[in-house]
C-alpha cells in the first residue's frame, strides 16, 4: 500500500511537471489574483471596476460577443443599471410587421454589441490589425491572466537598442516578436473609478484582467465552492470505504 501510494505520487508529480515545462515565449511574471487557490473567489468590487475599464477603454476596439448584458448583474449591478448599460448601444432587429429592419436600444438579453459591424471594418479602423474578441482572452493564451496583465503593462517607449519597431506598431516586451498593433491602452488615471479607488496603471490593469478572467470563467465562484463541498464529502466517503475494507478483509489475515 505504501509503495503504491508513493509511486502514484511520483507519477502524479511527473505528470504535473510535464505541461509546466511546455511554456514558450517571453517570461511571464506571475501576479496575485483574488480568485487563485482552492478557496479563491472573485472580488466583485474589482470586477465592477474592471467592467468600467472595459466599457470606457477596451470596448472601443474589442468585441466580447459571448457575454450578455444580463450577465453583469452577477457583478452586483442592479437591474436598472444593467438596462442602462445595454441601452447605450443600438442593435438591428426585425423585420417588423411592415417587413422592415429597424434599430432599437440593446436589451439585457442581448450580447455585448461589438464596436465594428464586421472583421473587415475592424481592420480598416485599426491599421490592418484585428483586435481579437476578449470573451475568452484570459484562458486562450499561455499564461492566462498573467499574460494579459504582462501585455497591458509591457509597453515601453524606448525599445532595446537594435530592435526595430515598424510604423504603426508599438514595442511590448511581453508580446511574441516584441511589436504589437495595439497602442498602449492604459495609463495612470485613464479612468476615474466610481468607488474612489486610485487609478494607477497597475491598478487598472489588475482590475480589467480580473474582469476578463470573469468573462472567460464566469462559473469560477460556483465551481470552487461546489468543489470544496464535493471533495470534502468524498474524503469522508473514502475514509469510510477504507474502514469498511479493513473490516471486511480482517477475517482473511
Amino acid at each position: 500500500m505504501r509503495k503504491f501510494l508513493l509511486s502514484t505520487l511520483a507519477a502524479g508529480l511527473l505528470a504535473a511537471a510535464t505541461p509546466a515545462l511546455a511554456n514558450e515565449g517571453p517570461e511571464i511574471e506571475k501576479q496575485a489574483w483574488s480568485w487563485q487557490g482552492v478557496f479563491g473567489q472573485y472580488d466583485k468590487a474589482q470586477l465592477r471596476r474592471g467592467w468600467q475599464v472595459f466599457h470606457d477603454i477596451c470596448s472601443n476596439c474589442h468585441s466580447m460577443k459571448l457575454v450578455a448584458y444580463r450577465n453583469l448583474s452577477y457583478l452586483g449591478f442592479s437591474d436598472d443599471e444593467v438596462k442602462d448599460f445595454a441601452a447605450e448601444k443600438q442593435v438591428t432587429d426585425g423585420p417588423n410587421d411592415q417587413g422592415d429592419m429597424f434599430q432599437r436600444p440593446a436589451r439585457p438579453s442581448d450580447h455585448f454589441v461589438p464596436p465594428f459591424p464586421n472583421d473587415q471594418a475592424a481592420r480598416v479602423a485599426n491599421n490592418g490589425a484585428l483586435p481579437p474578441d476578449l470573451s475568452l482572452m484570459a484562458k486562450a493564451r499561455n499564461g492566462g491572466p498573467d499574460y494579459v496583465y504582462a501585455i497591458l503593462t509591457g509597453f515601453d517607449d524606448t525599445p532595446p537598442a537594435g530592435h526595430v519597431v515598424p510604423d504603426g506598431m508599438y514595442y511590448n516586451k511581453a508580446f511574441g516578436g516584441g511589436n504589437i498593433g495595439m497602442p498602449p491602452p492604459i495609463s495612470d488615471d485613464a479612468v476615474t473609478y466610481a468607488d474612489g479607488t486610485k487609478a494607477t496603471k497597475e491598478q487598472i490593469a489588475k482590475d480589467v484582467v480580473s474582469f476578463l478572467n470573469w468573462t472567460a470563467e464566469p462559473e469560477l465562484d460556483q465551481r470552487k465552492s461546489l468543489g470544496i463541498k464535493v471533495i470534502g464529502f468524498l474524503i469522508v466517503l473514502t475514509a469510510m470505504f477504507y474502514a469498511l475494507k479493513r473490516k471486511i478483509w480482517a477475517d482473511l489475515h
Partner: protein
Amino acid sequence: MSGYKFDNKVVQWVDDRLPLFSVLKHSTTDYPTPRNLNYWWNFGSLALMVLVIMILTGIFLVMNYTPHTSMAFNSVERIMRDVNYGWLIRYLHANGASMFFIVVYIHIFRGLYYGSYKAPREMLWWLGLVIYLLMMATAFMGYVLPWGQMSFWGATVITNLFSAFPVVGDYIVTLLWGGFSVDNPTLNRFFSLHYLLPFLIFAVVFLHLVALHTVKSSNPLGIEMKGPQDAIPFHPYYTIKDLFGVGLFLIFFLSFVFFAPNFFGDPDNYIPANPLVTPAHIKPEWYYLPFYAILRSFTFDLPFLPAKLQGVLAMFSAIIILFFLPWIDSSKVRSAKFRPIFKQVFWIFVANALVLGYVGGQPPEGNLPMIGQISTAVYFLFFPFLFLLGKIEKPRALPQSISAAVLKDAAHSTEKA
C-alpha cells in the same frame, strides 16, 4: 437451467426465464479471485467507471451541442455559460478523457509488469489493446468537436498522415475529410463516429470481461490459483477494495474538474478554428505524445520510402507490436517480481515512454529530435531484447502457491510488528 435456487419466489420465477440473478451470483459472490491482488488491480474497474461517466456526460453534452463549423464553438460556450451545470458536465467530459487514458495506461503497464498477457490470457490482452485503439480514435475525434484552433489544426495534421501511403493515401484523406480540406463534412462525420465508438468500446469491454471471467484474474505472483485456499469471492472482498479505489480516484479526478479544469487542455482551443491562421506549435493531446515523437523521429528519405511514410509505419507498428507480446516475451515466468533483469528493463521502458511523451510535446529544436530518435530506438529494441531475455534470464524461485506466499508474508509482518 442455472442450478441456483433462490428463496424469493419472484426472483426464482425471473431467473428461470432470464438468468439475471444466477449470472450476477456467478460473477460476484461465486466468482473466485486470487486473494493477493494489490492496488494496481483496481484500475480495470476504474476504467469501466470512467467509460460510464464519459458516455453519460457525453449524452448530456450532445443535447446542447451543434455540429456545424459556424456554430460548434459557440454552442460549446453556451454549454459553459447558459446551460445549468453545463460547465460541470463539459469539464467532467474533457478531464474524463485524460483520466481515462491515465487509468488505462496504468492498467496496461500493470499487465506488462506482471506478465498478465501470457497464456492463457492472450485474447484478454488483445481485447484490451482493441479497446485502447478505439479509445484513441474516439478521443481524437472528440477533441475536434469544440472546433477551436487546436481541434482544427490537430485534425488537419493527423488526417494528413494517411496521405503518406503510396497511391491510395490521398484518396483515404479525401474520404476522411469528406472533401478537400477539414471542413463541415469532416466535423459531421467525426461527431457521428464520436457518438458511435464509445458503444463499440462498451461491447469490447463486455468481451474483455467475458474473457477475464473465463481465464480469471492474474495476480502479482503470476502463478495460477490452485484451489479454494488461493481464492476469495469477488464480492464482498474486491467490491469494497475497488470502492475504496473509486473514492481515491474521484478525489484526484474531481480536483482537476473543480480547481484546475483546463490543466490538460491547450489555451489555443479557446480560439475559434481559423483555417487561415496556423498556431505556432501544433501538438496533439498528451496521451498521443509518445507516438507523435516516434512519428517525428524519422527524418531521412529513402528510395520508395519517404521519411513521412517511415514515421507513420513506425507509429502504427509501435502499437501493433504489442499484440505479439505474448510470444515476444519468451519467459515462462509471468511476474517481474521473480525476474530481476526484466524488472529493471520494465522501468527503463516506462521512463523511455515518458521521455518520448516529453519530446512529442516540445517543438523539434535543439537536442530534442536526437533524444526522440534514441528513445524511439529504445522503444523498438525493447521487444527483441525481451525475447532474448526470456532465454537467458535466471528467474527466482516461484512460491508453491498463492496461499503459501500470503500466509508467509502475514507471518513475516506479525514477526516484525
